[in-house]
């Protein structure tokens, strides 16, 4: 594959990604080969159409939102660094990392950052609150077309009521964290990246 020579991953890049995301060498190379197989245009970046070509994503209720999560604000292309940065959220938390004090900044796959990623998928307008409408949209996507709006509305109302502690009729990030404190997020939001 001579034409791809220019897009091969350099060692320094691998090192940088390793430091930033915590993936191992073999994981990075494996994910890089996946990246290149998705990249039909062979320009080193992925566009939304590249993602939409994955068949299972099309039937996933949250497919569009997940795809959007990869692209930074306003951009239409994501390079390998960005790709890895997003995927880093789903790395399993290792025991050694659990005990390390948060010296500089939290690693991308800490519990808070995982929850923040999920929160951002709800909160499309980035106002740090999940409003009733945003919740309704997600519910509608997950539940399908057979259920009436009124019912979904009542579910959304109840959800917000359960979570809302400061009475602003929307779920803030802290309230979101509190509601999910019993859920084992470390396990639920981790994928074993085996080679």
């Amino acid at each position, binding site marked *: 594959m001579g034409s791809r020579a220019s897009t091969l991953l350099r060692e320094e890049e691998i090192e940088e990604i390793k430091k930033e995301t915590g993936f191992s060498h073999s994981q990075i190379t494996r994910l890089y080969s996946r990246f290149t197989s998705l990249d039909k245009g062979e320009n080193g970046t992925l566009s939304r159409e590249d993602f939409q070509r994955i068949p299972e994503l099309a039937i*996933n209720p949250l497919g569009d939102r*997940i795809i959007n999560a990869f692209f930074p604000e306003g951009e239409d292309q994501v390079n390998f660094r960005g790709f890895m940065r997003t995927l880093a959220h789903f790395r399993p938390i290792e025991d050694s990392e659990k005990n390390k004090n948060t010296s500089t900044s939290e690693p991308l796959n800490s519990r808070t950052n995982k929850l923040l990623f999920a929160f951002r998928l709800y909160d499309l307008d980035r106002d740090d609150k999940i409003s009733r409408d945003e919740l309704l949209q997600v519910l509608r996507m*997950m539940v399908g077309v057979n259920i009436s709006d*009124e019912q979904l509305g*009542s579910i959304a109302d109840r*959800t917000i009521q359960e979570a809302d502690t400061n009475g602003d009729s929307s779920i803030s990030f802290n309230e979101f964290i509190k509601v*999910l404190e019993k859920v084992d997020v470390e396990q639920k*939001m981790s994928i*074993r990246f085996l080679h």
Partner: protein
Amino acid sequence: MSPRRGFRHPGSFGSSLPERGLLLLVLIVLLQGSLLPFGAASSPDVGHRDEADVHAEAEEKHNFTKKPFPVLSFEYKHIQVPFEISLWVLLASLMKLGFHLIPRLPGIVPESCLLILVGLLVGGLIKLAGQKVPPVLDSNLFFFCLLPPIILDAGYFLPIRPFMENLGTILMFAVVGTLWNAFFIGGLLYAVCQIQPNNPSDLHSLELLPCLLFGSIISAVDPVAVLAVFEEIHINELLHILVFGESLLNDAVTVVLYHLFEEYSGVGSVTVIDGVLGVISFFVVALGGVLVGAIYGILAAFTSRFTSHTRVIEPLFVFVYSYMAYLSAEMFHLSGIMALIACGAVMRPYVEANISHKSHTTIKYFLKMWSSVSETLIFIFLGVATVDGQHNWNWTFVTVTVVLCLVARVIGVVGLTYVINKFRIVKLTTKDQFIVAYGGLRGAIAFSLGFLLDKRHFPLRNMFLTAIIIVIFFTVFVQGMTIKPLVDLLAVKKKQEAKRSINEEIHTQFLDHLLTGIEDICGHYGHHHWKDKLNRFNKKYVKKCLIAGERSKEPQLIAFYHKLEMKHAIELVESGGGAKLSSAIPSTVSMQNIQPKKPAPAKPEDRVLPKLSKSREEEIRKILRSNLQKTRQRLRSYNRHTLLADPYEDNFGEFLLKKQKMMKWRPHLPMFVCCFNTPGTLADPQAYSMKPALDSVPTIQVDLASPQSPDSVNILDEFQRSEQAAAAEEGEDDGGLMMKAPTRPHERCNAGEMDAGTREKLSRCLSDPGPHAEDEDEDEPFLP
């Protein structure tokens, strides 16, 4: 797992009452203890008498002499067997009752220990009376009558999600762990038995294969014992499912090893081919058992689809199909336990979507009752069988066995965890490993398997039995009693008692979809991918076949939500929150706003209720009760024939009579119209209609999903609705069932006013569960 233990009596007893109760119990025990030998004694006598009778009769035929007519006669043999069985069951139940009357004992000593002691006592009494102890732990009785209810209860209520998530770990422990235990114990026992050439004893005649057989019998963790002990200590879900799942799944290994070694012990040698066949046999046994169970489960689910006309026998299908799954598996020497588990787990989501609420409650309580009684009986019988058995006590054998069991368990768990942790996201800590190792209790299955051994092939059978009993006693008593303080000492995470909230449900589903998407992006066919595929397959094909009517299309989230709302509504009214109901008129209010008051003991003077005639009250109660329960049933068919045919509902004739009585009350009280709108009906505008004849009947409308008032309970003034009622279909059927046609969803009835008096009446009425007993809420969502 919801606790199966008896309830504690409220502590309002005087201090003399528990003692009196205890004394009474002891008396009853002694009485039964003495009756049983009497029963046993009378049978040989009666047997002789029978023969004598035959001769006498033969003679009598020749010279028929007239005897005085026996006014009162005593014939024990006639009813002997069922009578003795009932006595045992009664004894078991009374014991259970008794233990919870004693103030502090249940906290210190686990029930299983006490039951074994009782069994020892009863066995001792029987022996003292000089009679032959009935062979209570007969293997047929155990495997066909006592074990299936416990396993079915466990399988039906198995928490599927944690089980599947940890399936790899559980299988490793069950299969590899049990194999390791069996060979380690068997092999080392054989070695120990051979090491004393100077004092030749019985042990030397013990060959390798019987040792291995013994090892395989003793190595399996017992589900009955684990359930009995772990239920009382409330550890976190992960550990519970690990140990419990292991105890269930190792049955396949035990069956294969047992049959393998038993077959070849006679021959005396096992070749490599036999070993290979054994491995193949293991897969056949395990997978075959699961397959048989799954087939019966699907049959049961399919049958339940058609039971809407015969609600009364719905629970029977569940029980009979499961039992047949067990027996069919046993027929082919497959793993009966795995068949039962598979049957229960497969049929549950579909059956629960099809059956009525009452059937669901019935199934739950029957299973709990049977399994509870079974478990009690098993432990008592263990005690009795200990007293009875011909023991061959051999110090070396017994102590070595006990020590080896412990050592093998610890090494096995530690070694396996080391390997497993490489593949797990959430690793098992040392504390977890300790609990898993410590929780490896042996129980009655091991004893029954040992009991099955043929004395001709295994001359040392009695020695085996003695050793097995000692191991069982050790694990149940020592480990059972100390595990609770150890759990507290080590500060192991306990089970979280709080119920699942709608938030958790939504967000968990959300995360599932998210993870599936990410897995697809990475091209990684992991856990979520396959689960998603399975769910999709389930939704598309399976649910349509096995679930009747509308509910097949209902998303899981909606089902969960409705259960939650229903629970909340019932809770709310039961706690007397009726006073706040009028404020529920504004449309954006959800049920959440109306918090149920803390259930305070009702002080009679606080509630000033106007007098209601008894029949009127009973009327209201019946109507409300039937409607509250009807919702759960989610009527799909809506012609009058179906409604009429429901055996639970009152006679229409009876209703008409009462209606006449109620006509008198019309001017005095505003009436309430009671109807429920389930989401399925919204799609069917012609679904239900008002009955014009019943406009004077008190009813309450709980609109679960209406545009104006989403979740509030509307108390309507029925006079407002009379014009709508006019358009309704003539109906008969029971007094309370009325469904409103949501032809135009926007034209909801407005809430009427309600004065304080009727509000309180309403709450008082609803707080009475009525003679149809408690409708207990389910604790967890039944769909995984």
